């Protein structure tokens, strides 16, 4: 019997990872390769268009979606280290082409092939990490991944494979952190009030590390925790899963 050929996976790193925290992209690469994938990083990638989509700028969102679809089609899978960006491609791209049959088909083909990274590693690849980190961590379920993609058990299953890591529950883990993309700068006072409650819950968990699957939410929570003087350090969960949880946390100078 010959082993199944390695799937050719396109990694869409997302604009925030590209700009703010490249480590998340390298962690994704490392985990995907460990899970037996051949990873390609399409060179023309920018942003999935979520800020336009959520601002009501439909024409702009459609234009960005078209070029992103063209860039991502033809791979065995598209993998994204963000629940909300993966949901934009998987759930919202097809909606954008409701009245455009030609693009609708292409959008759906890419959509059904697009996965949030932890869901892909866990459910599609059935992979478990072989890494270690001696720490206690708590996990926040980012809303888009949780409610649009059903991501809840997958990251926890993968994190249980990290030797030495102990997961401690977070009160209100499924409650929004107040990021909301452009919401956090359009309505900063409301966003801050929500983030304040989230930061207090994270602190109360007693964990050393905060983990989640979306960099936007992580920046919001980590930024609030740091402003409040909390010692909790934050990582994208894939960094810990890929064995990069001993490096600088979010906001720590590399």
């Amino acid at each position: 019997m010959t082993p199944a050929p390695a799937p050719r996976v396109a990694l869409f790193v997302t604009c925030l990872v590209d700009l703010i925290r490249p480590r998340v992209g390298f962690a994704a690469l490392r985990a995907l390769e460990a899970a037996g994938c051949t990873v390609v990083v399409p060179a023309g990638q920018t942003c999935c268009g979520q800020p336009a989509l959520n601002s009501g700028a439909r024409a702009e969102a459609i234009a960005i979606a078209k070029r992103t679809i063209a860039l991502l089609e033809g791979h065995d899978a598209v993998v994204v280290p963000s629940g909300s960006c993966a949901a934009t491609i998987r759930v919202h791209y097809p909606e954008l082409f409701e009245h455009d049959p030609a693009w609708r088909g292409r959008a759906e083909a890419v959509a059904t092939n697009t996965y949030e990274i932890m869901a892909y590693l866990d459910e599609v690849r059935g992979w478990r990490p072989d890494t270690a980190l001696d720490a206690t961590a708590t996990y926040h379920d980012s809303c888009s991944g949780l409610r649009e993609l059903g991501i809840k058990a997958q990251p926890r299953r993968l994190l249980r494979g990290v030797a030495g890591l102990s997961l401690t529950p977070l009160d209100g883990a499924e409650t929004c952190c107040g990021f909301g993309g452009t919401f956090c700068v359009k309505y900063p006072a409301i966003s801050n009030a929500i983030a304040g409650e989230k930061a207090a819950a994270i602190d109360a968990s007693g964990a050393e590390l905060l983990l989640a699957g979306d960099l936007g939410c992580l920046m919001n929570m980590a930024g609030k925790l740091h402003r409040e003087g909390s010692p909790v350090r934050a990582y994208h969960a894939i960094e810990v899963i890929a064995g990069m949880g001993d490096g600088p946390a979010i906001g720590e100078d590399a």
Partner: protein
Amino acid sequence: MSAAFSRRVDAALADPILKLAIDRTAGTAEAKRALAVDGFAHFEQARTRAAAIKDHVVAHLGHYLEHFEASATAAGAQVHYARTADEACAIVIGICKAAGARTVARSKSMLGEEIGLPHALAEAGIGRIETDLAEHIIQLADERPSHIVWPAMHKTREQVSALFKQHHTAPHTEETIPAMAESARRHLRQGMLGADVGISGANFLIADSGAVCTVTNEGNAELSLVPPRVHIVTAGIEKLVPSMGHAAQLLRLLARSATGATLTQYTTFYTGPKRAADPDGPEAMHIVLIDNGRVKMRDEGLAEMLRCIRCGACMNHCVVFRQIGGHAYGGTYPGPMGAVLTPALDGLAASRDLPNACTLNGKCQEVCPVKIPLPTLLRGWREKSWREGLEPATMRQGIGAWAWVAQRPRLYRAAVRAAIFAMRRFGRGWIRALPLARGWTAHRDLPAPDAESFMSRYARGER
């Protein structure tokens, strides 16, 4: 953000008593709903069925309106139709005047608030007694409801006690909730029994029997609708259901979603006025069926919103509502459902903040007993606002320029390099203050970008 919305939000966020009051009530409701849902086998199927019932009625409104009118008329009620809020108020005032009414007893109805009935009654010189305990508190305080199930949820018991002492003729002397309830009971009973007309809303209109269903926990509807000579119902046309069986399916979801109770204390079906053999009841029953934009909503992409059974679960679970409370929304209906309804009722130009002041976290849709896709409907309003040029120029230009660059990878890489360079001038590690991002750094620190972007490092061969 409009100045008015900003002012209301700031006032709400600065009020620790408001936050305490919201968390007490909504927090309890959230916990009790979770228990009720856990104990409800096939909750998911019940939601799907409930949504299908409402969708069916909304798609066949004409048929069910005619069916209901025939049934209600056969039961002895008179049915009126109102296209607008003003028409509805005029019909109600006309009936009150024809009945020689000096005072009306009103059983809590959000539709009454929507059409401005309290104001219309006052203008017509007709006295109004709000018989729901929370509405009574609101009437004493001369305020508007801040929640569709608990109109006075923004008030603490301490504030209510002060109001009762100021307004009741024989107020409570002991600072206990039973003593306060007794004070309200003494005050309200006289009014209820002396009213000429009772006015209620409707939770359901049953097409095949002509019955009108109300749910309360205090029995105030029954006491304020049966003794007066005339009972007037004001109801939105989306309250129709085909039969009692359909109403029962929705009732199972309504109380559980609202308060976590299996059923409300009182669930009453009013079918026509007093019949010859009845020991009591009103001499006349009028049912005013009100459109007020509902058909337009159905035809213009908001049909799913007409499923709403007004349980309040969406707002109880909304992170924004939990911070700013109901009054900050500025419309009749607050929370996620209000953020969808208010632009339809009051115009988008005056309320464009509401669909925008939402993180699109989807919790509201998750808890909605009739599966209204609230985030999708809110996005729909954002698109309309963008199309109609209502979004602020800075946002339009910012998103426009960013979207243009995002379609040009080489330019985009250059922009990323420039952004990294600029941001790192304000800090390495954490940035404590960043011009153009003050909305962020006023409240939070911002992680500074690494020295080089992912795409740039990857292109250089780093793995």
